[in-house]
């Protein structure tokens, strides 16, 4: 899953730790989602979208391969 969390976080001048605090998760979790190492659950994805005031679609987009549209 691709995402633009890093850009949005930078726009808000939030560190990963600050975002983690807002979400109630560990900083490692934020880092893993941001770097694409971990695809968040729906609960976390909604929480992220809510925190940034965006929709999930604006935050995440699947990689083309994941959709089977190679």
């Amino acid at each position, binding site marked *: 899953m691709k995402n633009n969390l890093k850009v949005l976080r930078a726009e808000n001048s939030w*560190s*990963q*730790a600050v975002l*983690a*605090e807002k979400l109630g998760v560990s*900083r*490692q*979790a934020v*880092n893993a989602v941001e*770097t694409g190492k971990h695809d968040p659950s729906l609960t976390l994805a909604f929480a992220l979208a809510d925190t940034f005031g965006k929709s999930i679609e604006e935050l995440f987009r699947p990689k083309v391969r994941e959709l089977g549209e190679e």
Partner: protein
Amino acid sequence: MSNKLEKKEKKFLVLFMVHIAMFLAILGLSVVMNETNDLSVNGRGFLAMTPVVPMLFLLRLVISHYRSLDEYIQRVMGEGLLWAVGIVGCAALAYGLLGEMVEVSPISPAFMLPAIAVIFGIAKIIRLRGDAHEE
């Protein structure tokens, strides 16, 4: 890590150490009692297994802590546990098979849990190492 998570982690570590201390105390006590008293076989058997009790409470504590963690750390812990059980299981299997062919010195099964715990810790550290720094 947020303050709330840090507090939770600290509380867990303190309780973890208390359980380990209880385990060591009961283990020491059971060894001393076994050596200083002439107990029956049943008595010695009971005494030998008493240190498992704090470990069962520790297991309950770890599971409860696991449930309180976020999804990513749960995933890391799950993978760490798989590595630990897999490595110790394969090592036990290899040693057992080796013992069928050649003479090897026996190893107490009591070392399995500490071995799993150590490998789990190492696997968790390795897995989380990449997330240590903010990108």
